[in-house]
């Protein structure tokens, strides 16, 4: 019941916020296209930039006709497919959240009787790991989004709130997300002045370091700590194999996979029951 009420409140919130966010997103799109053209025109004045554009035709296209933006919007052109996927995920997620035991029991019954208890234990632990990872990620997303919006607003950058929300959302993807979020902010600031763009770049660098060296370690002390190299490898692999969706879900998949490997392979197959092996990447 709490889950259904929560989903209702969240849906209402999205319903109320959607028009304002859509309008600001439109504005963001126009500003981005404008800033890309402006950047192209400014770079075109320099000889080295002209040579670079001539040698790399892709780069010339990018700055000349804002093709990047049309490509980015092209990602969302299959709106129906994206909406269908979102609705599908929401419904499956809701049903799973209301009665998780029903589905877990059903899945476990497919296994041999002797292995069921162990599998239930491992699945519960994977669920806990995912929950802790999500809590940590949501906290970091909120902190990063709020700090970015505040910083951009203090610097006088237009669309500070939308860019803050975008940064917060993209922070769902560790390491790569904040970098992607910085690009539109710097481009928007470029429409004001190159100095403003430099300030915004500095702001993102400072926030990125604050996130990497202060916020993330603090949050991970109480949630889930994944080895950074493993996270990047998982992102690379799933990003190449499954595209955007793979990149988006690479880290939680790695977190869950780590539990399965440690419990089912290291402990059950190899018989390695050391404390190191049984910590399963969590440090609560």
């Amino acid at each position, binding site marked *: 019941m709490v*889950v259904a009420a*929560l989903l209702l409140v969240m849906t209402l919130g999205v319903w109320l916020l959607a028009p304002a966010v859509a309008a600001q997103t439109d504005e963001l799109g126009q500003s981005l296209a404008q800033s890309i053209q402006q950047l192209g025109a400014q770079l075109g004045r320099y000889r080295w930039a002209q040579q670079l554009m001539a040698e790399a035709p892709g780069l010339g296209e990018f700055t000349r006709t804002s093709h990047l933006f049309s490509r980015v919007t092209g990602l969302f052109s299959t709106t129906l497919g994206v909406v269908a996927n979102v609705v599908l995920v929401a419904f499956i997620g*809701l049903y*799973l*959240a209301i009665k998780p035991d029903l589905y877990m029991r059903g899945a476990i019954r497919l296994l041999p009787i002797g292995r069921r208890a162990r599998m239930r234990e491992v699945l519960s632990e994977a669920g806990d790991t995912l*929950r802790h990872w999500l809590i940590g990620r949501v906290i970091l997303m909120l902190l990063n989004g709020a700090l970015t919006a505040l910083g951009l607003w203090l610097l006088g950058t237009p669309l500070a709130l939308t860019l803050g929300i975008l940064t917060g959302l993209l922070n769902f993807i560790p390491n790569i997300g904040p970098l992607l979020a910085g690009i539109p902010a710097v481009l928007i600031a470029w429409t004001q002045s190159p100095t403003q763009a430099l300030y915004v770049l500095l702001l993102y660098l400072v926030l990125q370091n604050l996130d990497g060296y202060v916020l993330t370690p603090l949050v991970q002390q109480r949630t889930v700590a994944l080895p950074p190299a493993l996270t990047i490898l998982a992102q690379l692999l799933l990003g190449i194999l499954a595209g955007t*969706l*793979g990149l988006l879900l690479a880290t939680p998949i790695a977190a869950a996979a780590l539990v399965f490997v440690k419990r089912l392979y290291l402990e059950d197959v190899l018989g390695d029951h050391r404390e190191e092996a049984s910590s399963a990447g969590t440090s609560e």
Partner: protein
Amino acid sequence: MGFDFMQSDLGTFARRVCVAVGIFALAALLLVLLWYASEVLLLVFAAVLLAVFLRGLGEMLARLRRFPRAGHWAWWWRRSCW
């Protein structure tokens, strides 16, 4: 005797080859299936993640607000009204 030995050895070898080819074919089939179903599997994982998030948030809220579980609504309503 030697012939029999050869015969049985060849039989074992053939059986092993069949098993190895079978395992390889199954693994290849599994990989192809995974490749084609990767998007669906990722969507299912996203749904599981959403479920974990909703469940966690719901449990947290229920702990904070002492919200009733299903079936206890009438009791909760009477208590909050009086």
